[in-house]
């Protein structure tokens, strides 16, 4: 579905990562892990051409999205749903309108249909009672769930999650993880989860890719990851596990 080839990106003089090669298969859930500032989110934004690389390609269904005309690119983008880190809700409109927003501009549905569809999506993220609350009245977890509802409202083929559990308490994190699994199962969606939360990775991901030291340092299935002979990866995982065991939550 998504194929990243020899991707290199730098901001000014600072190299983010170079020569990344990665493929995401249809229907699977891939976790991209790495330390903060390793460029995980930057990589995710390249999958949607929100950022333009220095060199390399991103092929989506065999087409390089950086070569597409804007009208084509827009169609490709609409097959993706993105849950941004802070939810990225439009704060000038209510939570409900945020979900209905893409429908109002990109669907031919009538207003009642839009309402039904939006409500349906909100129910899927367990927020049926969100009502006319403004985004400022929502908690961090609710914002992410509203963001998720908005991401799925146009029925995407692929969902990109940017740090879905960061800044949330463990219980809410689990709810979000459950939602990610449910989306993948119920909607048969390909998912890419950007995270440094190993707990979340172990819960939701089929495969993982580890970005470290300005390159894609390791990738493979979760089972492979547990036994991989990779020092940096293990240090990263064990730090998370230590953190998890300290807080008393077992995986």
């Amino acid at each position, binding site marked *: 579905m998504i194929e990243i080839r020899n991707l290199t990106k730098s901001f000014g003089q600072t190299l983010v990562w170079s020569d990344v090669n990665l493929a995401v298969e249809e229907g699977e859930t891939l976790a991209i892990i790495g330390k903060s500032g390793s460029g995980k989110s930057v990589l995710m*934004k390249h999958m*949607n051409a*929100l950022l333009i690389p220095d060199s390399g390609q991103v092929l989506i269904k065999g087409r390089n999205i950086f070569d597409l005309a*804007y009208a084509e690119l*827009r*169609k490709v*983008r*609409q097959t*993706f*749903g*993105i849950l*941004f*880190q*802070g939810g*990225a*809700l*439009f*704060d000038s409109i209510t939570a409900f309108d945020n979900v209905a*927003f*893409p429908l109002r*501009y*990109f669907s031919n549905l009538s207003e009642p249909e839009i309402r039904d569809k939006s409500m349906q999506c909100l129910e899927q993220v367990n927020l049926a009672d969100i009502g006319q609350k403004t985004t400022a009245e929502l908690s961090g977890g609710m914002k992410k769930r509203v963001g998720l509802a*908005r991401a799925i409202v*146009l029925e995407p083929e692929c969902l990109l999650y940017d740090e879905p559990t960061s800044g949330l308490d463990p219980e809410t994190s689990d709810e979000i993880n459950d939602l990610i699994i449910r989306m993948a199962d119920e909607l048969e969606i390909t998912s890419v989860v950007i995270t440094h939360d190993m707990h979340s990775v172990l819960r939701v991901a089929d495969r993982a890719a580890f970005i470290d030291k300005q390159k894609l340092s390791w990738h493979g299935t979760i089972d492979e990851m547990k036994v991989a002979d990779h020092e940096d990866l293990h240090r990263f995982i064990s730090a998370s596990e230590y953190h998890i065991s300290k807080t008393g939550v077992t995986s």
Partner: protein
Amino acid sequence: MSKLLNELGRYCRLLYEALRSSTEFSKYRKNLINEMIKTGYDSLPIVILAGFFTGAVMTIQTAYQLVAAFIPASTIGAIVTQSLLIELAAVIPALVLSGRVGARITTELGTMSVSEQIDALESMGFNSVTFLVMPRIIAGVLMFPVIYIAASVAGIGGGLLAGWVTGALSVSDYMIGSRSVFLPWDVMFGIVKSFVFGFIITSIACYKGYYASGGAEGVGNATTQATVLSCIYILLADFSLAALLL
């Protein structure tokens, strides 16, 4: 120097993007209406207030300065009216609104930029430039002439009232003076100016806001820069237009 050229390039690119996709602009009509309300309708009270007091203060001060007995009182009306129409009714609202309108636009877009709302729009398939920048610039260009008219009328009325209340000159003297110097071209000049000022304020504010980065502080910096740059470019444009058209 290269930084300056880079900025200019990005600014032009943003404008180009806005223009290039103007065909799909009809979809975003609602945005335009909202922006026109915020830029024009909501600005009218402050603009009318500013215009009114500009005219009133000018009348009183001109009356104070013109003490020579052989200059007729109507000259005050002439000076106030022409100054307002040519210069003040366009420039003063522009400077006031570079704070009110420009700062609002930069803050809005800057916040959207740093909280990834612009990315979210793009990811949904919106052309964020068309969606966010175009309506704001068009609203500025369309509403600033309205603001100019409001400021002119308020200013002339303010001058009239101030002259009458302080006894500096009678209403009929004021009107005779105003009429004696009134040229339709002055109004055209003022409207052209207000078009340009509207464009400068909104486009600079959009540019600074759209490319804002670095969280709350980044948005604050962008807003300050946008306001200062707007004021500078308004004055520069004012000078250029005067040199070019008068």
